[in-house]
């Protein structure tokens, strides 16, 4: 055990000139930190946010440049598309009024339809030579660039506000969530090239399962950008559906499932929805889990439609989720996710055998982006 005397010996002695100087410096530091400690802490935080902001700006600029280059390469426009791209990056959508929530889903759906039509029209103007698949892919990369632009602007807002007000709490709230925001921004960045090149992404695993099941069967197009095939599985008839590929497209699976249920007047014994789902830290990429409910992400319009129709006809809805994090979901598909495919198909067959009888009708919906996935 150290005695107080021994500890004091470690401190500079005050009986020589340098010792005195050091004592004064130490006291000075103590006083300065007492009054300005919080400000020093804020400067360190501001520097940290500044570094991330610089990186976000770089990501945003690179995504914008890549989008302009792709439009010029694919669309062969007569005029420089830079101004149109910049306009696109600043688009916004105002969510419907939620004070009176009745009918909000239909108002939200209308809003999303208007936005989707507007985006596609704008891209057709920007890239007149692009075919429909390329338009879908360009839309994806422009949306990613717009997302990065929004992240950059929000972080810049808090950074400048923090500097202007010199408030520790303004800068602290952004500094604390910065690692999660940077992770999201990095995921967006990795998606830019994948969308431009039409590569399959992790989120497309649900659509890929459906594509594998329907591959050798005749497909028909149904409600907005969806394809369906009637596939015999384990002595049952399965309506397998997915978004039409290989362009970047999620379609309207909710509307498609609703139509199939209504066409069959509810004589559907089971609906299985397959989609990628966010994994928790510690879970393995490509892990498969089963559950109950409608596993459809996004603005929940499709989820609502399936829940409503399933309730109306008393159709049980089961979910199969393939685990992946955000970075894997919008980056090119990992081998682990692709390898989960056979496992998912085995589970689908087992669930059908266990929950339905021979001759029954079932729905198998592969949810997700069909970018780089045919059918």
């Amino acid at each position, binding site marked *: 055990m150290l005695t107080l005397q021994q500890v004091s010996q470690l401190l500079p002695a005050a009986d020589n000139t340098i010792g005195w100087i050091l004592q004064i410096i130490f006291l000075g530091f103590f006083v300065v930190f007492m009054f300005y400690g919080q400000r020093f802490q804020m400067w360190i935080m501001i520097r940290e946010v500044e570094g991330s902001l610089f990186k976000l700006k770089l990501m945003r600029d690179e995504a914008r440049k890549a989008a302009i280059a792709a439009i010029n390469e694919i669309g062969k426009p007569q005029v420089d598309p830079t101004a149109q791209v910049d306009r696109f990056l600043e688009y916004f959508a105002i969510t419907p009024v939620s004070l009176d929530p009745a009918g909000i889903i239909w108002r939200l759906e209308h809003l999303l339809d208007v936005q989707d039509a507007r985006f596609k029209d704008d891209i057709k103007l920007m890239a007149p030579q692009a075919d429909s698949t390329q338009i879908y892919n360009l839309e994806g990369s422009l949306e990613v660039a717009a997302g990065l632009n929004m992240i950059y602007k929000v972080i810049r807002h808090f950074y400048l506000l923090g500097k202007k007000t010199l408030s520790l709490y303004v800068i602290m709230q952004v500094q604390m969530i910065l690692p999660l925001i940077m992770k999201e921004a990095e995921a967006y960045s990795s998606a830019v090239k994948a969308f431009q090149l039409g590569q399959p992404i992790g989120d497309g695993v649900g659509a890929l399962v459906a594509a594998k099941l329907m591959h050798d069967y005749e497909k028909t197009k149904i409600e907005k950008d969806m394809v369906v095939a009637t596939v015999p599985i384990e002595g049952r008839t399965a309506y397998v559906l997915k978004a039409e590929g290989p362009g970047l497209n999620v379609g309207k699976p909710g509307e498609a499932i609703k139509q199939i249920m209504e066409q069959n007047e509810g004589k559907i014994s089971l609906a299985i929805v397959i989609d990628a789902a966010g994994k928790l830290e510690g879970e393995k990429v490509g892990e498969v889990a089963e559950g109950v409910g409608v596993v459809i992400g996004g603005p929940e319009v499709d989820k609502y439609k399936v829940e409503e129709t399933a309730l109306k006809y008393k159709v049980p809805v089961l979910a199969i989720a393939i685990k992946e994090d955000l970075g894997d979901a919008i980056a090119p598909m990992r*081998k682990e996710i692709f390898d989960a495919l056979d496992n998912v198909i085995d589970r689908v067959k087992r669930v059908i055998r266990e929950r339905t009888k021979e001759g029954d009708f079932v729905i198998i919906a592969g949810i997700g982006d069909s970018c780089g996935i045919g059918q």
Partner: protein
Amino acid sequence: MEPSGQIAKKVSPFFIVIIMIFIALALSFIYLGFQDFLVDNFENGSLNLTIGLIIIAISTYLLFQTQRRTLRPVLEIQPLNTTVLCQKCGFKNVREFQRGDYIFKQMEEPCPKCNEKTVSISSIFREVKEKAKRATID
């Protein structure tokens, strides 16, 4: 394929030299401090040790700051494998992803083995090499 947006590491060599001089100076002070302690000169010993530790703390902080400014490539094209499979004879060819490839795409070229036009893309994925991890809680 080259990654775009590569950012060069811009750390001045002059700055690195200064940090190295600081570290050398700090180590000398710490050495002198220990020497003083060995001959029971606690006053000079503690003084030298304090100066040495302060300089080493400042140098380490500056060194970490230079490392923090280094940025990784922004938009990377990740290498993807495309597997082309003949549905008839099972001939398999794994190659790098090319623009226009998509899963279940029917290829126009005939199979190099059986010469039938039954070749399609069966898979496209990337392989991620996980870093070797120490035993952790799974």
